[in-house]
């Protein structure tokens, strides 16, 4: 009988390099793997982060893959036990990382095309991985637009980066909040109010969207009405990933496992699945 030494359930050790607040509840964390290797993720993939004694939870990688950089970023909202424990760690602390897992945005298909990125709420975190990848290879893509919807101004994240991005002119940035406060001077309304304002050419635009469950069907309907084919739309779907290996059953969307068949799906491939959107 062969003895086993490898287990996909054993995380790789990693170190917290820095952390900085993005909003009341969301913090940006920078990590490196202790083996000195690059995480080698692709935009849209996720990892499982372990804090031993507390638990393990899935998080999208927020940074773009960069060949010669060993640092990767997670932006995490303090909401449960693992995220609370994470928020209490200081630079130098050790964590465990499994992954990267799942499918990614097919950036090669986006080359030469216009792209429209739609981010609702914390959906900006994984969208940012794709956005930053595109910005690093800006000349390879056509017109770029990003729509960002947030519930309220104080929940906005990466605000300085987004302001810089908007000012750079590299990307069309449109932002809205559902519920404004006295400081907010921008658009008000749900994210679908932004789409008509974006200068997209429906025939040449590839769409990537991530947001809360309720967002998809409205944005998808709007895309359809504009004439953007479901072949050119990618959605990233959140489910309760536990194992990351297509086994535990928690993240199933009908017959698919979001952890291996997703989280990024071409909309055309899942349109007919009742549990997807």
């Amino acid at each position, binding site marked *: 009988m062969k003895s086993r030494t490898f*287990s996909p*359930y054993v995380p790789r050790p990693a170190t917290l390099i820095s952390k900085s607040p993005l909003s009341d509840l969301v913090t940006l964390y920078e990590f490196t793997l202790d083996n000195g290797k690059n995480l080698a993720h692709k935009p849209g993939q996720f990892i499982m982060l372990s804090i*031993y004694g507390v638990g393990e939870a899935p998080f999208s990688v927020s940074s773009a893959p960069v060949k010669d950089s060993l640092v990767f970023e997670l932006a995490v909202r303090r909401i449960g036990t693992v995220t609370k424990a994470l928020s209490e760690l200081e630079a130098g602390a050790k964590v465990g990382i499994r992954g990267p897992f799942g499918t990614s945005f097919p950036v090669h298909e986006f080359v030469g095309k216009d792209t429209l990125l739609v981010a609702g709420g914390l959906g900006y975190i994984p969208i940012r991985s794709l956005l930053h990848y595109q910005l690093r290879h800006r000349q390879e893509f056509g017109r770029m637009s990003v729509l960002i919807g947030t519930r309220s101004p104080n929940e906005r994240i990466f605000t300085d980066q987004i302001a810089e991005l908007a000012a750079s002119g590299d990307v069309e940035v449109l932002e809205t909040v559902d519920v404004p406060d006295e400081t907010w001077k921008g658009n008000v309304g749900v994210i679908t109010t932004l789409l008509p304002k974006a200068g997209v050419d429906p025939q040449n635009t590839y769409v990537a969207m991530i947001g809360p469950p309720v967002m998809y069907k409205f944005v998808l309907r709007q895309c359809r009405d504009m004439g953007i084919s479901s072949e050119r739309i990618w959605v990233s779907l959140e489910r309760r990933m536990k*194992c990351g290996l*297509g086994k535990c059953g*928690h993240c199933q969307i009908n*017959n698919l496992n979001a952890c291996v068949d997703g989280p990024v799906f071409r909309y055309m491939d899942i349109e007919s699945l009742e549990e997807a959107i």
Partner: protein
Amino acid sequence: MTAYTVQMEQLPKLCATWSAQYGVHVPMALGNGFYDFAPWRPGAEIAFEYDVAYNSLKRFFMPPREDMVAFDVQSCTASPVFAAPPTLLFGVHPYDIKAVTQLDQLMEAVSLDQNYFSRRDAVVIFALTPLAVADTAFWASVGADKVDRGYDLYWTKTGPGTFHVEVGSGKGEELLLAAGPLPPATAGSREAARKAQVRATKLGLSRKLLYDWHETPHVLERSWNSSVWHRKAEKCLACGSCNIVCPTCYCFDIREEVDESLKTGRRFREWDGCMLSGFALVAGGHNFRAQAAERYRHRYMRKGKYIFDKIGELGCVGCGRCVRACTSKIADPCAIFNTLWEERRHEI
């Protein structure tokens, strides 16, 4: 196919020989008409005429709780945990073997489940042609009355004190001959075994699907909006009993605990159930299957379609355990598939 004839009085010595190497488990009567696999002890009475073991055999490959990772909180290091207890299961009915070979395929797909196969590779399976059938079972109508793989030996009781034993693997033959040579099966013995199998199949058809089981995925893909799901699930207690007793349900949760020292601990997986209300709940509170009817439908879709689409077999082997375990009397794949087939048959 190599086969031998074994006499009943030779069995205690064989079991004792196997026990030196393996934890031998045999079907035993628990009282009140219930049976289950239990460790063999000298003098144990093997219940050859059991109808169904109360629990499925998945616990031998994937225990209800299984340590997978040992960790050290302070140094933040972790190492894998594997277990491989040598186990011999004697007297397994074909439908339960079919369930195991399905698990094998599902645990191998995409990413090989090391913990599962660590245990699985240490298990020897001796099949037994059923002599009785549970009143809730319908295995013969889903092609699970006989298997042609997944066993090391296939035992058939051909007389009051005689077995016809077909060899399924080298390991099985070695174990069969471990207590001394045995006579090869005669043509008469083979014929008696064939008849016993015919009898088992007939017995197994006392409850059945009304259609060819291969049609199940086509029936289910038209049944998403059937009123059956709501009608049945109205009474669902979301207890997960059907998941627990099911030989092909393998969903699990991953959790961990630390020792009293707070320095070391272990991460383990634990059986979970898609019928439990929080199964598809995500951070932030959204539940992708909040309604009992959605979970109920998911379970039958998985058995009848999703698994089928993956491995070409019905994900239900017709053992009837869930029918018995369900206190609300709503879990019955045979009844549900038949109802849906009746509903859809005029559309197909």
